[in-house]
């Protein structure tokens, strides 16, 4: 479904992604873990054409996308819904209009169908009844969930999450993690989640990739990760164990 072949991305003299290769099967939930600045978000943005790789190939549904023009990316973006690190809601639009935005741009649908899809998406993230509010009138956690609703409203086959729980309290973090798992299952979507949260990855992911300094240093299923001897993975696991001890 998604294939990376030796993808290299540079910003000036700095090489952010150093020959990344992996593939993702339909319906799979892949977590990409790593410390800040290792290129996790850059990797996601290459899939939807917000950035272009300097070398290598990226396939989405067997279509090579790394050299596509902005207009040609439209069809890829219909398939790939991206949830950003920030809620990225449009301040001047109501929650309804925010969620309807992608539907109006990607498809020509009658207004009653748009309304039905928006309300369905909001109910899937447990936010029914806030359609007429503005983003500034709801909490940050709710904004994150609206952002999720806006992405799933277009019913993408692939969901890309860029640190979906950053800046959220533990209760909302758990709610969002559960949503990711449920949505992937309900929509039958393939998901890539960029995160720092190893505990969540162990609970939800089918597969985990650990990035460090632009390279994949470990990958495998959650149970394989638990037995990893890679120092950074051990550090992540220690964090999880410490958190469990505190609890």
């Amino acid at each position, binding site marked *: 479904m998604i294939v990376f072949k030796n993808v290299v991305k540079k910003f000036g003299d700095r090489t952010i992604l150093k020959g990344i290769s992996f593939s993702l099967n339909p319906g799979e939930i892949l977590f990409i873990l790593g410390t800040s600045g290792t290129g996790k978000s850059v990797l996601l*943005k290459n899939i*939807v*054409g*917000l950035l272009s790789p300097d070398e290598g190939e990226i396939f989405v549904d067997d279509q090579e996308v790394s050299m596509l023009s*902005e207009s040609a990316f*439209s069809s890829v*973006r*219909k398939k*790939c*819904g*991206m949830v*950003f*690190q*920030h*809620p*990225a*809601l*449009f301040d001047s639009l109501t929650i309804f209009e925010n969620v309807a*935005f*992608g539907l109006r*741009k*990607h498809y020509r649908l009658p207004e009653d169908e748009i309304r039905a899809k928006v309300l369905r998406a909001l109910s899937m993230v447990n936010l029914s009844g806030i359609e007429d509010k503005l983003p500034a009138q709801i909490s940050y956690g709710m904004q994150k969930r609206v*952002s999720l609703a*806006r992405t799933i409203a*277009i019913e993408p086959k692939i969901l890309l999450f860029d640190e979906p729980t950053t800046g959220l309290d533990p209760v909302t973090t758990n709610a969002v993690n559960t949503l990711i798992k449920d949505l992937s299952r309900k929509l039958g979507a393939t998901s890539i989640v960029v995160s720092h949260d190893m505990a969540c990855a162990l609970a939800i992911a089918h597969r985990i990739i650990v990035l460090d300094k632009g390279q994949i240093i470990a990958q495998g299923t959650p149970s394989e990760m638990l037995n990893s001897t890679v120092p950074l993975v051990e550090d992540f696991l220690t964090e999880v164990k410490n958190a469990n001890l505190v609890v």
Partner: protein
Amino acid sequence: MLISSFNRILVEILTEIGSMILFVKEVGLTALRFPSSRRLILEQIWKVTTQSVSTTALAGFFVGAIMSVQFAMQMNEFGAIGFLGGLATSGTVREIGPLLIAFLLSGKIGAFTSAELGTMRVTEQIDAIRCLGANPIQEIIVPRFIAIVVASFFLLGAGLIMSIFGGALLGYLFAGVNYEQYTRHIPTIVTLPSILSGTFKSFIFALLLGTICTYKGYTATGGAKGVGRAVVSTAVMTMIGIVIADWLTSTLSDLVLKFFVEAYGHGL
């Protein structure tokens, strides 16, 4: 050391100007190929006009007043006080009006637009627009750009009308020139070339402001600091750009006027 720093700064400036020209080209092509929604453009025109009309009118009133006081002092000595209104208004229409409107728009709308777009950039709203199947240049840049250019004409008109009132009031209070005397020579001194020159200047200043503030906001990077940097550099670049453009347009206007005088024995 000094030469290499100079070279680096020169390269940076040229790179910035080149990027800005490419940006304007993209905005122009997008505006022609994928017209923005009329509703979005009208909303932005309304926003820019209403945000600045009171400040522009107030400043216009006092500019007229200042011009009137300054001219009155000189003209009294030559017994030409009857021409006070005509000369003060001509100076405002040709030079001070467009310059003043441009500076005010730069401070209010330029900074606001740059900050708004910069915030949209660093909070990933612009990326979200692209991912949701829309073109950010068409959705957010073209409407703001057109609004700044169109609104500058409305604001120029409002500022000039208020400057006549300000000039007339101060002309009466300071030099005893009544309203009828003040406005009598305006139609003869404020000629079509004066109006065209002022309108042309205002148009060029608005293009410059629209380009700089949308470009700096759209390309902002680096979180809140980056937005701050974009706003500051919008303010600095527009002020410098407007002064340079004023010199260029004044020179150009003079050349055009001289050409018509030499060719046809009179101006436009």
